[in-house]
């Protein structure tokens, strides 16, 4: 069984995706032994009424994928009153974490509001997911060119909030070498494999990142689900490490005992 840390519901703004109807998405997840999936919303990229986005996300997870889909609310700290969105995600919809898209929302992780957001999340025991990119920059719509998120400020932010768990989504196309190890020096930083490329990708990643900090993530339905599933086979991981990456690392960090 697998826990997927990187799933999106609703509509990608630039084309319809196969399986972007939640019912077919859930069916496909179940067919492929995905037992839990942390789901954000594509609407969280561009919609300004983020409260309604998160409300719909929570309702969709509850009705279409109870016990499988776990909603992760979008927060945009450039919106007036964003703090209320954090409170609503936590208290009204009992979301366990928050998903950020700094590049689509036009801010840097060094901005003062991000410091406040991290502190709020840490105080409430919420995890934070940050999507580094949403697609290959070479295929972006010409009117919607978006740079990758710059993570230079992240290590200090995490140091200021020691218990906070942070996951980088869609990071492994761009992050490697010293840039990556500087981030993963903090054991509360995890990274998922959706955009990991190269033959034997996970084997190679494990030379840089402890396997305890590597998570299964598919970026389904934007990517074919089989891409990340295949990666577990392409690398010679052994049963124990495969179990950790595909399930137990996420289970221990992000699921409440009642959800396990």
């Amino acid at each position, binding site marked *: 069984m697998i826990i997927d840390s990187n799933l999106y519901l609703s509509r990608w703004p630039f084309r319809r995706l196969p399986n972007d109807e939640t019912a077919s998405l859930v069916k496909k997840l179940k067919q492929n032994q995905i037992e839990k999936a942390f789901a954000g919303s594509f609407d969280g990229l561009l919609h300004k009424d983020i409260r309604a986005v998160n409300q719909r996300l929570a309702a969709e997870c509850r009705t279409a994928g109870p016990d499988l889909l776990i909603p992760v609310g979008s927060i945009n700290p450039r919106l007036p009153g964003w703090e209320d969105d954090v409170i609503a995600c936590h208290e009204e919809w009992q979301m366990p974490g928050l998903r950020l898209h700094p590049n689509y929302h036009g801010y840097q992780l060094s901005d003062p509001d991000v410091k406040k957001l991290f502190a709020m999340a840490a105080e409430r025991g919420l995890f934070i997911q940050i999507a580094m990119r949403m697609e290959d920059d*070479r*295929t972006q719509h010409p009117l919607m060119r978006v740079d990758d998120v710059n993570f230079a400020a992240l290590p200090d932010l995490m140091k200021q909030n020691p218990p906070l768990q942070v996951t980088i989504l869609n990071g492994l196309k761009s992050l490697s070498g010293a840039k990556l190890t500087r981030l993963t020096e903090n054991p509360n930083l995890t990274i998922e494999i959706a955009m990991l*490329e*190269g*033959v034997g990708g996970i084997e190679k990643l494990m030379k840089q990142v402890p396997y305890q900090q590597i998570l299964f993530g598919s970026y389904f339905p934007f*990517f074919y689900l089989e891409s990340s599933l295949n990666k577990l086979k392409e690398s010679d991981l052994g049963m124990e490490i495969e179990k950790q990456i595909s399930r137990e690392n996420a289970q221990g960090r992000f699921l409440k005992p009642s959800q396990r």
Partner: protein
Amino acid sequence: MIWDLHCHLSGVEGKTVDERIAQLMGYADRMGVERLIFFMGWPFSVDPTPDEFRKQNDQVMQAISHWHDRAFGFVYLNAKYVNESIQELDRCVKNGPMIGVKLWVATRCNDPAIDPIIKRAAELNALIYQHTWFKSGGNLIGESTPGDLALMAKRHPKVPLIAGHIGGDWELGLRAIQDSPNVYAGIGGSDPTAGITEMAVRTLGADRVLYGSDIGGRSFSSQLAKIQGADIPEVSKRLILGGNLKRLLTPILKEKGIKI
């Protein structure tokens, strides 16, 4: 049956090409890839001189020399050097083990100056793979688009041509070659974005779509997923994963006495 159109000797460690290809074959075995086509040596050279492309082709011929009937080579040429490229075609294909041509980003393929190379390759039944991209940030000066290849294809209507990467931005690339019946879509070497294969089959028909991985920079996992995860008939998947490439290569493989 999986035949991989697009492999490089990169992404693994190894002082010699023999060491590298042996490792790559190990991953191919894990993923069930039966036959593989390699082109270009390393380090990559975007605008190689004749001396450089000869060296790169020597690397590939050395690498495949121990993998008869399983690993094949396409000769890497630079259309800026027409005479030298034709000599290299004869050295590596007519008088050597190679079975196709790789053209990368030195010059755009819509320039009629390339025609003698295409004609000679066709005489030898060598299959032609042309790298193509539509980059939203702009292509390299010599980098072809699928539209460029469609123009070239009109001048050589009986020669099968492969649009490598199908332009990266496949929604544009597939449209650009849809009216060029001798152009095939190589769908490897880009992110495993869901819908690529469905649109390729819808636009071109399954018999004009080819699997390739672009290892070692890419993974078998992500690129196989494009077919495994697509909502298309099983018979179409078999064509894309190997049937089409086998059909296109059968004339030259038979000439070379290679068991199919």
